[in-house]
């Protein structure tokens, strides 16, 4: 309670004097230094009249300017309506949208600014210009109302037995605290019954699924992939999906590149994941999931445009710069008997952003 205590000087200083700083000296830790020889507040400076106060001609002129602004606003509103009809949107002419936007907008601008500038000008040039003074009072309620409030609370307490009947009170608090729980549970059906963790660990890729061009869905022959080229790839069948097409694409998108075989630094265990220098990597950034769409041929680096993570294609797409933490997962590939590139299996590591259960 002591904290609320705010013993401002009783006699509220007249507006021309400085309010004295309280000095709680030893009692409470107030830190303002009070100097006896503070410079006093000089009080209000003499009022300076405006030209419109002194010269009736100027006053009349201001009046005319303000009404002119308001009239201008009416003109603006009319122009806006005229523009609405005079500049229709013509399907055949893309520029018509721009003209409609421009002239309708300028009409409305005029209508609004006329009112706005007029009103502000009115207040500045013609309305009473003396500054007025209002006293402040401490924000706290008066002692009287505080005492009354305390009385009301204690009476309510007495009449209800809120503190006395502690069993009733505590069970009530417990009951109210528990009521929101059903609401939390009810959000379970925001999504279906599947286990999202399992879903995150599988994609459409599987043994024998052809690598196809995004977005046309035509399969790719190994021979089409020349050195230095890069293909945006989707699994066979994705383009035709009626259901979940975008969700599947968000996991299965792949980048296909061909490097000179001697520049490819392959882990012997994964040597058969590539085909004649052709490698396929998930296009979904392991940072937070943007498509890693920029391929720099000379350095064999992939760059994610979202936060600039860089992956080294020659070294199993290890992270060489930026905030990503896992290499892009590699899609093991080979060719089928017709010479088309196919997956050997699904990705061996989960694609996309890292999550809690990713390594389980």
């Amino acid at each position, binding site marked *: 309670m002591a904290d609320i205590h705010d013993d401002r000087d009783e006699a509220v200083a007249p507006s021309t004097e400085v309010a004295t700083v309280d000095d709680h000296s030893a009692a409470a830790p107030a830190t303002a230094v009070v100097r006896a020889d503070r410079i006093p507040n000089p009080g209000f400076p003499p009022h300076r009249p405006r030209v419109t106060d002194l010269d009736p001609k100027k006053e009349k002129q201001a009046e005319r300017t303000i009404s002119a602004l308001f009239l201008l606003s009416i003109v603006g509103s009319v122009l806006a309506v005229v523009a609405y009809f005079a500049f229709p949107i013509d399907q055949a002419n893309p520029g018509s949208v721009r003209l*409609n936007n421009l002239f309708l907008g300028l009409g409305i601008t005029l209508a609004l600014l006329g009112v*706005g500038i007029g009103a502000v000008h009115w207040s500045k040039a013609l309305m009473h210009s003396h500054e007025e003074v209002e006293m402040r009072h401490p924000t706290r309620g008066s002692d009287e109302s505080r005492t009354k409030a305390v009385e009301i609370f204690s009476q309510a307490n007495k009449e209800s037995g809120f503190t006395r009947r502690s069993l009733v009170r505590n069970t009530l608090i417990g009951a109210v605290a528990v009521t929101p729980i059903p609401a939390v549970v009810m959000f379970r059906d925001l999504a279906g019954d599947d286990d999202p963790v399992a879903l995150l660990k599988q994609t459409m890729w599987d043994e024998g699924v052809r690598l196809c061009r995004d977005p046309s869905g035509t399969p790719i022959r190994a021979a089409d992939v020349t050195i230095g080229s890069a293909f945006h790839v989707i699994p066979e069948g994705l383009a035709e999906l009626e259901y979940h097409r975008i969700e599947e694409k968000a996991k299965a998108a792949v980048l296909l590149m061909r490097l000179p075989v001697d520049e490819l630094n392959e882990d012997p265990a994964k040597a058969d994941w590539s085909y004649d220098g052709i490698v396929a990597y998930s296009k979904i950034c392991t940072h937070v999931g943007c498509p890693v769409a920029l391929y720099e041929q000379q350095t064999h680096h992939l760059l994610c445009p979202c936060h600039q993570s860089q992956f080294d294609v020659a070294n199993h797409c290890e992270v060489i710069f930026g905030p990503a933490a896992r290499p892009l997962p590699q899609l093991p590939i080979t060719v089928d008997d017709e010479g088309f590139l196919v997956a050997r299996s699904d990705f061996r590591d989960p694609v996309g952003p890292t999550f809690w259960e990713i390594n389980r």
Partner: protein
Amino acid sequence: MSTTTTAPSAGTATQAAPSTGMRFTGWAANYIDERTSASTAVKTLGRKIFPDHWSFMLGEVALYSFIVILISGTFLTFFFDPSMTEVEYSGSYVPLQGIPMSVAYHTALDISFEIRGGLLMRQVHHWAALLFVASVALHMLRVFFTGAFRKPRELNWVIGFLLFVMAMALGFTGYSLPDDMLSGNGLRIIDGMIKGIPVVGAWISYLFFGDEFPGTQIIQRLYILHIMLLPAITIALIGVHMLLLIVNKHTQFAAPGRTNDNVVGAPVMPTFAAKAGGFFFIVFGFIVLIASLFTINPIWNYGPYDPSPVSAGTQPDWYIGWADGALRLMPPNLDWVIFGYTLPMGVLIPTVVMLVFLALIAVYPFLEAWVTGDKREHHIAERPRNAPVRTGIGAAAVVFYCGLWAAASSDLIATHFRVTLEGVIHTLQFITVVGPFIAYWITKRVCLALQRKDREMALHGFETGRIVRLPGGEYIEVHEQLDDYERWKLVAHDEYQPLMIRPDDNGRITVRQRVRAGLSRWFFEDRVAPVTQREIEAQKH
């Protein structure tokens, strides 16, 4: 008293024979008052005084741009359909014809290309949103640097802080609605961040999107947040914000005649109302002008959302930049695996840092009050230089925020200035980590120097530029003394001293006390005392 039947007198004009208009006004006022006691509200609020200063307009700009947002947003809702059902584009924008897209994107395009004034309203809405968040942020800085958050306004600071968070949330949810390429990528990033949450990440993402990312629910869900829940909360918070403003009354800068116990300015009716009402129209008009001249968010250029393509060099709306930048500044390879479970620290660290930063903003008034031990009410807005440590802290926070913000454009900076991306990132890492300390130190020094200059000026007046030759042959520049009114601004502030360590009731000095005293010393140790009357007198002789 509200039952009297006399109409409020209608000014000085034609008292004798009231015109029909006046008689009607009187009748209507009486009718309403007899049913609502409205005269009481007019009596208490009608002549309330509002002090004036250019920086007080920032909050007004925020309020008015929010109203513009409500008006333009409501117009958009009549035409926008947030469904993610896939359709083929059949509108008049030729490059997209025949392309599959969501209904949401289709209707956002229709608003732009088929509905007269639709593009204008979209652009008004978006420009107003950008201005809204910007003015809220600047308003917050004004309040911070003038110490206007001190007692009794701490709670209103917290409400203002919540409004800032709401502004960002409204902006992000709105940005996502058109379901274009950029907004989809923004959601993808949010999805990645959610998935990184320990233990429940994958589940929260699944529930939030209603399926695997992106699912077919998210736009509807964000729409409900964007046009109902968040605006309702925002309007309620603005209401309380204004109410507390009236209860606490506005702060004012020190000036002759203005004290901690009065408010000096224009009364609500008529001057302030005319000025503020007029200013609303000016803000509105300005936003419409910008919207008619400058394109914002040309969603037709981006195409519908597709998880595969992305274009480089795209930017989020400005207020999301700091979050995007925070992600970019993390060093590589920070996945921690503990007992087989994985913590993507590269995502978690920036998230936690941002949350802590926001939390510090929210509780700053309470921290400062504890450190200073100051329990008085403050109604005079401080000049930033007179609180050097606070101003330094503010400058540090600004540098930190701007470092993150700049990082969101790291790629553009690199290509524009032809420097390496790595160089830009490392520089910005330095700026966000060390920069705040440097900014703090420099700002504090500058404040103290300015205080000294104020003292100098209060005591010796200002240089007139007039050079005079003394009888001895010596040249001096004539200084002209300030008059009492001019001087007041320079000497009005209080001087503070650090808290002393005092033993508690048991005669012990607790660690808490020591920490508090230490912080207090840090806060107040370097200070320049304001000029006193005695010094002025001495100067005169």
